[in-house]
């Protein structure tokens, strides 16, 4: 470096002069000032993101406060929604939110983990893997309102037949105790499971891919078949990440709005039947907010707080689990 600078520098100039050339020189006072300013601006925006989240929580809590004082815990344990008598309760919505999300997690989670296995354990050629991965990612790209439309005109008619048959023959089982008249818990949960599948697949695939190859190779070396390796090495090692994926998927399902508002039936009732209409917190907000009066808005804000608490808790838990797993796997590598 020094040699080069000496050669390039005209005769008579010493090294310090060479370094003061237009190509490399110490920053001017203005540049130093700008540097400090830019640093502070970047800091401010970083803090801004934190403030944004804090403000969201604060604003919603503030607007919900009067309703929270007025209705108290009764709001969580009753299920009437009557704007005229100012009588509100969201028990049916809380149950419906959890019920649809758990069903979706069961179906979408199982399928998602299976797809993640197929995409990460060398089942299909590399090229095919890439194609399938893109298709699954596209599933996440379809807007939820389009899934809602598809659900109304394709899925509901498709499940009506099997649902009617199950109801006729197994009405004694509480899950099949009512008829599916149109929208209901089952179609809503099915669409929901399609919507969380990409999340579960992407995150659990990452966890599976992070399992050190030599662990699997060691098991193969002992004569294990591919599925023996999957069940005894890959899945147990990646279990933290897979669990995190399920929690994140669950969080998505809890907050999903449009597909549910269009498919769940918006009935303030709850039961075990998969075919009866129900309601969820997000769907309640979507359906009532646009035309709500002052009193109802207060109650809706309270419902928002409930939804926010549930989803933020689940998401924070999911992020925390992911963080811990990444750390653990680093030690294995």
């Amino acid at each position, binding site marked *: 470096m020094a040699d080069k600078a000496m050669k390039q520098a005209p005769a008579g100039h010493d090294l310090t002069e060479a370094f003061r050339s237009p*190509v*490399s020189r*110490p*920053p001017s006072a203005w*540049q130093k000032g*700008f*540097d400090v300013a830019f*640093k502070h*601006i*970047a800091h401010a*925006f*970083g803090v801004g*993101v*934190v403030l944004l*989240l804090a403000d*969201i929580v604060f*604003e*919603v809590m503030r*607007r919900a406060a009067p309703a929270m004082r007025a209705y108290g815990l009764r709001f969580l344990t009753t299920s009437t929604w009557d704007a005229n008598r100012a009588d509100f309760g969201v028990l049916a919505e809380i149950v419906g939110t959890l019920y649809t999300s758990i069903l979706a997690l069961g179906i979408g989670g199982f399928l*998602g983990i299976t*797809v993640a296995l*197929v*995409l990460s354990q060398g*089942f299909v050629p590399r090229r095919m893997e890439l194609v*399938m991965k*893109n298709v*699954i990612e*596209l*599933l996440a790209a*379809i*807007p*939820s*309102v*389009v*899934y809602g*439309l*598809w659900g*109304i*005109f394709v899925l509901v008619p498709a499940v009506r037949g099997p649902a009617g048959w199950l109801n006729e023959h197994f009405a004694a089982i509480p899950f099949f105790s009512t008829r599916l008249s149109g929208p209901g818990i089952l179609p809503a949960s099915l669409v929901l499971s*399609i919507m969380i599948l990409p999340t579960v697949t992407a995150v659990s695939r990452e966890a599976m891919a992070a399992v050190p190859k030599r662990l699997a190779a060691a098991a193969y070396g002992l*004569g294990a078949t*591919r*599925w023996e390796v999957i069940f005894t090495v890959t899945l147990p090692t990646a279990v933290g990440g897979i669990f995190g994926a399920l929690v*994140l998927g669950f969080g*998505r399902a809890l*907050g*999903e*709005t*449009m597909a549910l*508002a*269009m498919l769940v039936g918006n009935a303030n009732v709850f039961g075990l039947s998969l075919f009866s209409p129900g309601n969820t917190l*997000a769907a309640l*907000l979507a359906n009532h*907010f646009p035309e709500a009066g002052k009193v109802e808005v207060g109650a809706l804000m309270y419902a*928002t707080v409930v939804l*926010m608490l549930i*989803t*933020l808790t689940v*998401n924070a838990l999911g*992020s925390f689990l992911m963080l811990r797993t990444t750390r653990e796997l680093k030690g294995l590598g």
Partner: protein
Amino acid sequence: MAHAASNSQEVPARKRSFHKSLGDSRTLVNTGLTVLAVALSLVAMFPLFSVLYMLLVKGAALLSPSLFSELTPGAGMEGGGIGNAVVGTLVVVAVATAMALPLGFMGAVYLAEYGGESKLSVVVRFCGKVLTGLPSILAGVFAYAIVVVTTGSFSAFAGGAAMAILMVPTVMLTSESALRSVPSKMKMAAFGMGATRAQVVLKIVIPTAIPGILTGVMLALARAMGETAPLLFTALFSDYWFEGELLKPIASLSVLIYNFAGSPFEHQVALAWAASLVLVTIVLVLNVIAQVATRRPEEH
């Protein structure tokens, strides 16, 4: 000794175990599970194809220039189009981008270049992740509380604000990883020339990371385009053209689909399918751009 003897007796069995027999129960279970897993993967992909098929069958029927140049028809009326909704979606997304880009991008610059592993950067990143999982309807409620209630009317601005909240975390987290993937050698070289950190960031890191940042922005745009929940009670809907007034209700494709999906009039349902086709096409194009933007030259 006994050990060695028993070992020698097992030799034939071990030799056999190197051969895979199709009738072996372990092989059968293995093959069965493989077939099942691949079949389930195909089942998982089926909805996408079904959705695309329905969009092409039902949505393409109404595709014509007048679809984009006419206003949404009222109940029971024939004709009309979705022109105001297309324009409305673009306006709301533009407003949202104008608000979300600076915050998300500068947040990413902070995280990648200044935060390091400090406590604040951990908190910022955590908040970003939590915002990613924020139900979109909560963004709508927030925008309703601070914009609609304050200004006294539903508006394009409120819709944009709600959507911006959903774009910020995507822009921030993808930009951060793009900025971080810039080789430190390049930065070191610039520092060696006497550049300040601000100069390194502005002249070296950001220009190099542009493809990755573009991907983040495209993904955020694609997500925002299709959002309905945050617009329902912020932007509301309008049966008229956007006339430059950001403080009035505005139409959007997604809310149009929601409103018309439950309509008893067949023509409105058909328009909902057509709007879905247009919306999904835009979203998919944005996704493709996002993927092309980050494809590294050496992968070709």
